[in-house]
């Protein structure tokens, strides 16, 4: 059984600021503003010191624990030039190469 953090109403309440910031990144102008000054952008969305630190450190597991939803924080990752595989590998504590080696397509017949 996989280890999971179910996205409940309580988590949605807890993660609302981070998720709302991430949601805003569907606008190109907001992505530019985020890239120009990440910390200022995070303050605009009222993130706490701890939440700003999680984003600054790209601590995706910490963001999950803080109520972040993957479908939203992937927008932060994409804005900074990352991608789902890189984010996923990091959450597993692996390099991208290590993670890709676990995939069925790379496991041989």
């Amino acid at each position, binding site marked *: *059984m*996989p*280890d*999971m*953090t*179910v*996205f*409940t*109403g309580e988590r*949605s309440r807890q993660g*609302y600021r981070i*998720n*709302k910031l*991430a*949601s805003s*990144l*569907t*606008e*190109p102008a907001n*992505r530019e503003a985020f890239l120009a000054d990440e910390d200022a952008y995070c303050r605009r969305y009222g993130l706490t010191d701890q939440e700003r630190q999680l984003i600054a450190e790209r601590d*995706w*597991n910490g963001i*999950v624990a803080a109520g972040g*939803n*993957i*479908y*939203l924080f*992937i*927008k932060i990752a*994409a*804005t900074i030039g990352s991608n*789902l*595989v890189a984010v*996923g*590998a990091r*959450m*597993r*504590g692996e390099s991208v190469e290590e*993670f890709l080696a*676990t*995939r*069925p*397509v790379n496991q041989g017949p």
Partner: protein
Amino acid sequence: MGSIVGGIGVSHAPSLARAYDEGLSDHPDWADVFAMFPPAAEWLAGLDPDALVVVYNDHMNRFFFDAYPTFALGVADEYPQADEGWGLRPLPDLVGDSDLGWHLARSLVADEFDPTVCQEMVVDHGVYSVLPFLAEPPWSTPIVPVAVNVIRHPLPTPGRCFRLGQAIARAVASYPDDRRVVVVATGGMSHQLHGPDFGHLAPEWDNQFLDLLERDPSQLCQLDHSDYMQRGGAESVEIIMWLAMRGAVGGSARRLHRAYAAPMLTGYGLISFEPA
């Protein structure tokens, strides 16, 4: 009078969209996934339906958690592509069927399903990642999008999704003019996208789901969300949307296509039905 002439269940993913855009049909990571689609796409082209009702979920590109509908129904004549945070793909906007959309709104509400009725909707990879595999753009077949909350719990039950599909079928059947409609449901299959078990795949369960969807969907309706999540990963619970398609095509529908591959992050499935 309208009729349901087919049903398709198919997985969606942003990476599937990227694979299409980059033309990775021969890439080892993607060859098995690309190979799933042509027989169903050919069948769909032959059916030439008047509209597609597409049951999918919005990944916070049209709706946010300030007001996230359990069910939402599009009644527009066009559905632009959503910018999900990484720019737009070189694909046209979708044509809508406003008349059918409003008819569905009236019929579903009279049937005691109460979707949020949307006169404007942008549509994300829940529709856009699979549509090019089912029909070559530019697309002329109009769609009616039906979005389901499969992300923020509490979620509608699997049985509720099945009954939504039955209600969609009643709505189509009561349409005043001829309309041949295919119901498409997207999402799944096994995948988990967060935490230390990112990348969880469950091919055995995915194939059991396909078996049951064909032969005994009532068993799938009786499972609860935690059963789905524990078997297929937290995000895989979205597979309950396929039950809406199964409800729409009816109990005696004949299964036509079935394909499955799980090379990388997601169990990709495709199944199609033809009503009896």
